[in-house]
């Protein structure tokens, strides 16, 4: 069976920004064609279908849609935006095609059309920083609920961190995760292995074995590698295997038993603080080690101005470093802790407005390459307690795109830049090819850019309800998530 994604604007940063129809066959992208083109192509001047496809991609489309190719999501033509979501995206099992400009040629091809007028199709989003809690803490989240939440958040792939129980520091655990995800279908799972055995910071884990089993990077996330010599050896060893090292940058002696950002709010609330330097000093150390070793270094969850500056300087010097931040760091500040709201407690902590703006600046000037969620589901057992005893972390999969789109809505990023940071850059770092081109798997995220919706944790697919964004009104929502040509999530409620 073939699918034709019809009527959407297709954005693959750097190559496509145009109204295109995508033909999917057997889970793969078979063709990307002009919306008015029949499929299979009517052979008028060539017997080679690929040449027709290529031809369709070039000049004649540009003349029609050149303007659309330059605009951000904010400027999406109003007449294309349909406020009646119930009709949009209706899957038409019938091969009959309705609507002007289409030539009915699908009978013999048995094409199922999906009407995506008003939608934007982008390469599948990848969240390279999640905690799915399985094995070991299935009461918080499972691979199944985590992947469903990911699909709902528009992610076609996620990278679970190794701080499970047991730790993902060996090929057996890696294989368990990979097989579990495969048996479930839906969003793909690319595990990240441990840097050190048991996350203890002492001995290197078997990266080679784990790589064969499916890991795409290594980290001791949740903990820093405290010993600089161990980190150096890990970088050297990983470099030989061609896998990036992800740094959870935190100086534990500086962080102490702090539970929120050190600053005015912590002082008022009487909560012990974690200074920016607890993060930035280790960012600087690891950049120096990456320079020493030539390893591919990726800094996780950047929260503060000093870290952004350090990464900017490192990049200027040519160090092989990339970095991510999370939506909460560019959306809210430590003021969100308000009266001891444990749903605003995470590590690194929410910082000040100055840091928030520095993070946005870092995203917009390219210092921060990637937006990842650090999705960290917890149950009420860990969160409905005294603030200093509450667990660190918030869920993020189902709010990430909505929150990040606000950066586009307010002009901080272009839509292309956002898709770079949520899809293309993580794909490049992890050696995943998710370009929207014939021959690639149909891993696609379909966004309804003008839908208004409210965050309601009660409706989350994740087991975690720990979010500070409950009640947030956002513009731009995931409409559909497709993995290998199969619909992993489809908004059915007609919007909220």
């Amino acid at each position, binding site marked *: 069976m073939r699918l034709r994604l019809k009527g959407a604007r297709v954005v693959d940063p750097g190559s496509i920004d145009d109204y295109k129809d995508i033909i999917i066959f057997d889970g793969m992208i078979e063709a990307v064609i002009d919306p008015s083109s029949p499929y299979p192509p009517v052979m008028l001047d060539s017997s080679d279908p690929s040449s027709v496809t290529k031809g369709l991609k070039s000049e004649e489309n540009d003349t029609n849609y050149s303007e659309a190719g330059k605009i951000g999501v904010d400027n999406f033509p109003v007449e294309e935006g349909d406020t009646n979501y119930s009709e949009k995206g209706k899957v038409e099992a019938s091969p009959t095609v309705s609507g002007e400009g289409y030539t009915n040629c699908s009978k013999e091809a048995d094409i199922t059309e999906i009407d995506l007028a008003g939608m934007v199709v982008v390469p599948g989003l990848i969240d390279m920083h999640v905690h799915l809690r399985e094995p070991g803490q299935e009461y918080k989240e499972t691979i199944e609920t985590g992947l469903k939440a990911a699909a709902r958040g528009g992610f076609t792939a996620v990278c679970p961190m190794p701080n499970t129980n047991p730790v993902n520091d060996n090929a057996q655990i890696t294989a368990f995760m990979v097989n579990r995800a495969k048996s479930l279908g839906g969003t793909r799972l690319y595990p990240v292995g441990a840097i050190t055995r048991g996350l203890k910071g002492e001995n290197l884990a078997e990266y080679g074995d784990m790589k064969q089993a499916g890991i795409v990077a290594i980290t001791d996330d949740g903990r820093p590698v405290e010993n600089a010599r161990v980190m150096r050896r890990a970088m050297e060893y990983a470099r030989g295997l061609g896998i990036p090292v992800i740094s959870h940058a935190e100086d534990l002696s500086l962080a102490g038993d702090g539970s929120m950002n*050190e*600053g*005015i709010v*912590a*002082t*008022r*609330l*009487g*909560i*012990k*603080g974690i200074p920016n330097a607890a993060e930035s000093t280790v960012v600087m150390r690891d950049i120096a080690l990456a320079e020493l070793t030539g390893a591919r270094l990726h800094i996780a969850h950047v929260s503060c101005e000093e870290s952004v500056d350090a990464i900017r300087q490192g990049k200027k010097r040519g160090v092989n470093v990339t970095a991510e931040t999370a939506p909460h760091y560019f959306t809210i500040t430590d003021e969100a802790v308000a*009266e*001891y709201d444990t749903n605003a407690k995470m590590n690194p902590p929410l910082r000040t407005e100055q840091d928030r703006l520095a993070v946005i600046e870092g995203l917009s000037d390219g210092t921060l390459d990637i937006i990842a969620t650090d999705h960290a589901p917890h149950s009420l057992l860990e969160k*409905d*307690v*005294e*603030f*200093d*005893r509450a667990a660190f972390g918030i869920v993020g999969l189902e709010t990430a795109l909505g929150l990040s789109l606000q950066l586009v809505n307010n002009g901080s990023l272009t839509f292309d830049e956002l898709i770079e940071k949520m899809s293309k850059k993580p794909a490049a770092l992890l050696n995943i090819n998710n370009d929207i081109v014939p021959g690639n798997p149909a891993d696609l995220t379909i966004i309804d850019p003008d839908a208004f919706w409210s965050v309601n944790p009660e409706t989350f697919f994740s087991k975690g309800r720990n979010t500070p964004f409950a009640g947030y009104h956002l513009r731009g929502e995931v409409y559909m998530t497709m993995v290998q040509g199969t619909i992993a999530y489809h908004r059915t409620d007609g919007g909220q």
Partner: protein
Amino acid sequence: MRFEHKDLLTLDALSSEEITMILDTAEGMKEISNRPIKKVPTLRGKTVVLFFQEPSTRTKISFDIAGKRLSADTISISSGSSSIVKGETLIDTARNLEAMNPDIVVIRHSSSGAATLIAGRIKASVINAGDGLHAHPTQALLDLMTVREKKGRIEGLKIAIIGDIAHSRVARSDITGFTKMGASVTVAAPLTMIPKGIEKLGCRVAPDADSCIEGADVVMMLRIQKERQEQILFPTEREYSNLFGLTEKRLKSARRDVLVMHPGPMNRGVEISNDVADGSHSVILDQVTNGVALRMAVFYLVAGGVKHAA
């Protein structure tokens, strides 16, 4: 005028008028403690639970005596005897207390925000007897009461607070309370003990003890906890005492009628010298006496009483 708050968690929530009402009520209560029969029937039939998760002697006794002088039934739970040690969560403990229908729960807890957390979950009035590093509102109120009693006013006075501001809930509540009542507060300590942004609470930070004390109407010394030395906050008690300890000599730069206060327990010879602690300026024991009256007033007001009705 009625006291409109269910709980007393922090002074932030109170207006200066409300603080004045509490102080006025406490003054009225003070006389009861001087009667031969130190008991009035005001809170007869009311149950007050004293839930102290953190060790405390004087605060707990002060609340206990205050409740008993108003004829309330007071029941104590301490960390050793409570089910906290058996792994029960704070919220479950609170719910269990609630199920026994107390009227007032007094809580002391090592976590900042613990009183706020409980207050949101139970119907009984919650009085914060100290939560972590956050607040100790009845201590600040009894300090205000003592100063007003001795000086006749609070507004316009210069208050010096010296000690570990960063780790002191008393300092936070005093800064808030005295500032709210129109006094100006200056703090001093080694900079390791001055938390970031403390000025936003309304105080000034003096560069050293002497400039903090100069011209002060009130000098409040905070206890230096010996454990803090392990957290690398100061090198030795000897040096702390030299730089920040209150001595007769140092006190000379304050106003002649300066009041010396301390929330206790004191480390004599460390933050305060013997002669100052026991000297003519010291009102440290008046603070303790006033603590009972102040807590009687707080019980009375949160239980729904009106001003001066004792």
